[in-house]
């Protein structure tokens, strides 16, 4: 009869091999090990989830007749929806948009931007404006640190939750 160490070995062997299943039957014992089909099968959930991350991919789960017919003729779609916020690195904070609207980096077209890469911010520093329904919503940093990346473009439609700035805390 197989011992626990034998089984451990078998698991490791199967794991490292390209095999997907192992069955042993003896007079006094049956053992069956199975492995998920590594890559070939994308489970639907993963496929669906995979839809979100890359911007503009949200409409790609099912091809639209138009898209299939004229893949290149699409008239400049606006920025795709924001994927789920990227994994937070330690010490880095991402400022996201609290509403859907137009993103403006400055209070007026000819004014300098509120912040830029390298700017120091505190909780109350206004970092941008998101315009919704003709209302200019000043967005505050809500953290203390240094802007290390601007993630949205001036005048762009930003979604709820879309990352706008990355800030190194401190």
């Amino acid at each position, binding site marked *: 009869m197989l011992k626990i160490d034998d089984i451990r070995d078998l698991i490791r062997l199967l794991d490292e091999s390209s095999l997907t299943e192992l069955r042993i039957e003896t007079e006094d014992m049956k053992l069956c090990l199975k492995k998920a089909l590594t890559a070939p099968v994308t489970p639907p959930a993963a496929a669906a989830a995979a839809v979100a991350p890359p911007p503009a991919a*949200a409409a790609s789960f099912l091809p639209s007749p138009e898209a299939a017919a004229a893949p290149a003729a699409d008239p400049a779609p606006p920025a795709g929806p924001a994927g789920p916020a990227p994994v937070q690195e330690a010490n880095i904070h991402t400022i996201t948009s609290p509403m859907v609207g137009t993103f403006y980096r400055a209070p007026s077209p000819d004014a300098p931007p509120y912040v830029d890469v390298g700017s120091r911010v505190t909780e109350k520093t206004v970092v941008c404006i998101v315009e919704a329904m003709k209302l200019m919503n000043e967005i505050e940093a809500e953290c203390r640190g240094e802007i290390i990346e601007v993630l949205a473009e001036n005048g762009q*439609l930003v979604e709820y939750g879309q990352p706008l700035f990355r800030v190194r805390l401190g």
Partner: protein
Amino acid sequence: MFNRILVANRGEIAVRIIRACRELGIETVAVYSEADRDALHVQLADEAYCIGPTPSKQSYLHIPSIITVAALTGVDAIHPGYGFLAENSDFADVCEACGITFIGPSPRAIETMGDKSAARAAMRRAGVPTVPGSDGLVADANEAERIAEEIGYPVLIKATAGGGGKGIRVVHDRASLRQAFATAQHEAETAFGNPGVYIEKYIERMRHVEIQILADRHGNVIHLGERDCSVQRRLQKLVEEAPCPVLSEETRRRMGEAAVAAARAVDYVGAGTVEFIYSLDGSFYFMEMNTRIQVEHPVTEWVTGVDLVREQILAAAGYPLSIRQEDVVLRGHAIECRINAEDPDRNFMPCPGQITEYLPPGGIGVRVDSAAYPGYVVPPYYDSMIAKLIVWAPDRQQAIQRMLRALGEFRIEGVKTTIPFHMKLMQNERFQRGEVTTRFLEEHPL
């Protein structure tokens, strides 16, 4: 014609609208809450934007966000679906003010029909039969008592701002009227922010029969026959069918004409439904008008061959209706079952969760309207409907057999559904004989 429409809804109705748009060559813009990132309507639309966090109030009901997306994506029109903002006249107003067509009737029509006591009054003026009751709002318990005596018990006390079965109390005798009246007013105030209530005679044995109407901007108003939605649980519809198994041709005609009169009374445009109380003695009374597309619209689509969402969009764009009243011919029988993520064995407790396996039924006479797919997670935040299963057959008996066949084929794993309930219902002899009132499930638990 519209080039681009924003779909201000989620779930199967958002998918339904996107399908209609695609067939019309109209681009679609979807909006979604954070909880609906992986939703089918987001995947099917040409573009999709996250407009807010999970709670509806901050997303699907949040007018500023929706209007912002509409303006920034340059849509010509917004389709509100059902629920959410579909019967919100403020929203229709805002759309109009922003130069975006609201696919639905005028704000005034929505408002009139949304105020139940104003609607009753308008219907009486239009000559549509209404249930005996108060002329409008009832000021106090004394007046309530007087009216109840006049029309006879039992009576209903209804919140004028209610709807969809909410804000209603039954009073069986004089002894309990005063207390009930006070409670009803208080509840109406709390639930709807409007304490106005009115009184109606309570018709105990009734069927819920409703007429589908279509109207364009050129004065054409037609009706497309009735739907029977008598199978209800706590005033929520579970099964709908067309035609109604007990309506005479003559009553159908009169009810249809009443519905057209109701629509004309508010200068209706688009698709709408006039709900009637159908008493078992053959008389009928106006109940309310739903100024939007309805969950159960597919059964009418199948027996008439008319695509209601398409007509609704075309009417909003100023096109005349594609059919005249005399072209409306009912063919065969259609039944719809609402497949909800609920456990029928545990008092229809909602069962959100991941659908691990999903294979809808197919073949002859079967239509499935759904936003589900294998791996989809039914979120616990919105309604529990997973799919609408609609069947058609030449007659009602065959339609019931077909529904039973299709329900048996429908494979949904991972969440409990109401499929077993519907299978029992389809095999129930009373249901098969068409002997159903709105209290059917109460009186004959399956």
